[in-house]
């Protein structure tokens, strides 16, 4: 296992290098001159030149890249144009709500998705199955900013049914009342995808000969499903969960904006508006690292589930 982990970590190095190349080139690809943005529109040529020198823009591109990467390795991501504070401070200060949001949404979508998928597969072609799958289709089709707005409209502002209870709040992060709606908003699409994936994977597994073997042993139907079928059906589902987590990070950008959560996504959006590029660059870099890290985690779970992967 350790050997595998080591190997897997080494494999991420090229990916991480790729990520830094991309975030670095963001700086070069920005329309206009970064120095101009830094120094402000009314800057004199001398000020511009100073800004350029300070940013290292006069160096050849490979040297700039080298400086950037060595900064990243030391944890120095530059400093914000607006606040002047270190990017790392700004970004990591906002990281917690985003990761929490993505994590809880994943939990919720795995929980709902697995149950719905298994029930659907076991009750194939019944009313329950159709209802769940139509529900999943809706969940999949609704853009999450719209869903978020509708939830706010119905549960917080609109009908009045829930008003006064203070169960749901449409802004901020930290208390359960604040967290429920964003988690539902972000987790819905994931639940739907996982439900559909689990259903088709389960249906395939249920047809397998070893399920027949288990039944012929006298194993009860419930145990056939949960002990024999589900674990095998989980293998492709885990992959989807991993990929899903990545898109949740992306979805967080929108959800945080809708619910006014002070997370990394909102920070990036605001920084784009304010043309605070070092922050955007740092935020994207952190997102990418998170994504890579989660996928290593998925690989480990995958291996634990499916011993045959040991061979490769």
């Amino acid at each position, binding site marked *: 296992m350790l050997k595998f982990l080591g190997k897997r970590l080494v494999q991420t190095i090229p990916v991480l290098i790729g990520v830094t190349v991309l975030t670095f080139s963001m700086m070069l690809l920005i329309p206009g001159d970064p120095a101009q943005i830094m120094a402000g529109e009314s800057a004199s040529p001398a000020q511009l030149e100073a800004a350029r020198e300070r940013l290292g823009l006069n160096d050849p591109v490979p040297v700039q890249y080298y400086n950037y990467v060595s900064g990243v390795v030391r944890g120095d991501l530059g400093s914000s144009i607006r606040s002047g504070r270190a990017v790392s401070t700004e970004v990591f200060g906002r990281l917690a709500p985003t990761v929490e949001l993505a994590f809880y949404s994943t939990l919720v979508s795995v929980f709902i998705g697995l149950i719905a998928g298994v029930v659907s597969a076991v009750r194939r072609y019944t009313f329950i199955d159709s209802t769940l799958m139509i529900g999943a289709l809706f969940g999949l089709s609704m853009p999450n900013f719209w869903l978020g707005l509708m939830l706010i409209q119905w549960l917080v502002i609109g009908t009045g049914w829930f008003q006064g209870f203070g169960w749901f709040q449409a802004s901020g992060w930290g208390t359960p009342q604040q967290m429920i709606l964003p988690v539902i908003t972000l987790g819905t699409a994931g639940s739907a995808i996982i439900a559909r994936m689990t259903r088709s994977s389960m249906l395939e597994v249920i047809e397998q000969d070893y399920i027949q*073997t288990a039944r012929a042993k006298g194993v009860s139907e419930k145990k056939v499903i949960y002990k024999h079928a589900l674990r095998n059906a989980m293998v492709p589902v885990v992959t989807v969960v991993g990929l899903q987590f990545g898109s949740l990070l992306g979805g967080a950008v929108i959800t945080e904006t809708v619910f006014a959560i002070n997370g990394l996504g909102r920070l990036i959006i605001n920084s784009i508006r304010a043309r605070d590029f070092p922050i955007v660059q740092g935020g994207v870099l952190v997102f990418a690292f998170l994504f890579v890290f989660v996928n290593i985690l998925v690989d480990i779970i995958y291996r634990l589930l499916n011993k045959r992967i040991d061979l490769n």
Partner: protein
Amino acid sequence: MQEKLLEVENLRISFSTGDSLLEVVSDVSFDIDHGQTIGIVGESGSGKSVSARAIMQLLGNNAEVGSESVIKFNGEDILSKSEKEMRRIRGNDIGMIFQDPMTSLNPTMKVGKQISETIRIHENASKKEAAARAKEIMRLVGIPNVDERFDQYPFEFSGGMRQRIIIAIALACSPKLLIADEPTTALDVTIQAQILDLLKDIQEKTGTSILLITHDFGVVANMCEKIVVMNQGRVVESGTTSEIFTSPKEDYTKKLLAAIPNLHEEKSPESKEKLIQIYSGTREKLMEVNKLAKHFPIGRKNTLKAVDSISFDIYKGETLGLVGESGSGKSTTGRTLLRLHEATSGETFFEGEDLNTYKKKQMKEMRKKVQFVFQDPYSSLNPRKKVEDIIGEALDIHKLAKSKKLRRERVEELLTLVGLDKSFSQRFPHEFSGGQRQRIGIARALAVEPEFIVLDEPLSALDASVQLTIVDLLEELQRKLNLTYLFIAHDLATVKKLSDRVAVMYKGQIVELTDSEELFTNPMHNYTRKLLSAIPVPDPHYTATDASFSHDDSVEISLEGQTLQEVKANHWVMQ
């Protein structure tokens, strides 16, 4: 009088397909005494497996058992039992063994746990007790290093060993009845012999009754006391094994018995003539294979020597049989020969020209002369294409049809040639039976008028009576079109019938090469003899004469430092 263990009376089973009911088993009756082995023999679609599943009540939701049907097990009516009561019977009183050991074990569960699970369900045993019992049973079914193997996963076992595990699962609670549904069909012939030996041995030790379901008369002959022959959901005939073999009453039974390949049949005068020409050097060589090798890398350090330096010739118009068990390298040889795999080393000459020097264009020309027929007629035809387009595709690739009309005519001509109706050209593969599909596969191969066809296990997926008709077809086509065949198979019996000469492959090497009659009457290499002795003999009165071969796998046959030598005129043996 002691009560019967199992009585099945007037069993009728229908499956609902959409709105209609399809009756697959009608009026089937048979019974089993305590300690008896009976065989249900029938071809695919005869309803034999479905009947067995009905005994376990494992038919699925869309099946319906007729109200007049009775299944009594140990005096108790099975059909009136609830699902909960049935669960107590499954795995406890009746154990079941399935056909395909590669897919019948849960891949994510340790084998030991899969065996002890049965014990834990039915007996109030602690984890430790169940594990101890499971290990005991693993020893009984002949698994070595039980303590170590107990905690391994199915992928770490070979096919034969997995089948032993499945048998162990079925035996875990000492059932009174063991239902074995084609337990050896997916296995190599030497492994089949081992598993059959094991089943017999277990019956002697435990006294369980066995219901053996198979399509193979060879398997039942020496296993069963009674035989039930089924066809299209009905019992055709039943009786004691020697009655069925010596005086079958029904035509269908006679037909099945006639389909059993006869190992002692003499070759045709035509084949003998061919051999004389080959051995006297008057027949032209089509292919010459010289020290051909194909190695596959496994990981970074190891290589698998799938084909390890083999040499042989193929003469025009002959059939060379290439026999071996799975993993012997026979299919790889066929593929490497035609450069579907690039050879690791060695030379192949086709009509005197070195294939390794061929460029792409020349290879395409060559491929027109050489065709493949594949093993599985179900997956080797594109399900979304009409037969006309499946066969016509080869014509298109080599631009052999000048117009749509000519293309259609050619396809129809080919269908007639392989014994099918020409109206079939407008149908899709799923509308055909396995045998018909294999005929379509052959028609596709014939489309480009090849000289040489590699037949890669073309019969293994077919019923015995269908196999016979395909062999006849292949022989007829060879005569008509002067074709040369390389016939790859694991089944010695069919090889004997079709081949003029036979090469036996083992561990990537040819261990014996001679004409087919000589090989069967005078096998010289130990491995060939082992293969021959493992063929189940379809004769209930037969007792093994060559007792020197226990079908034990642990006796490795070493090829270390041996070479293929002509020990007798035209009989090459590795030694």
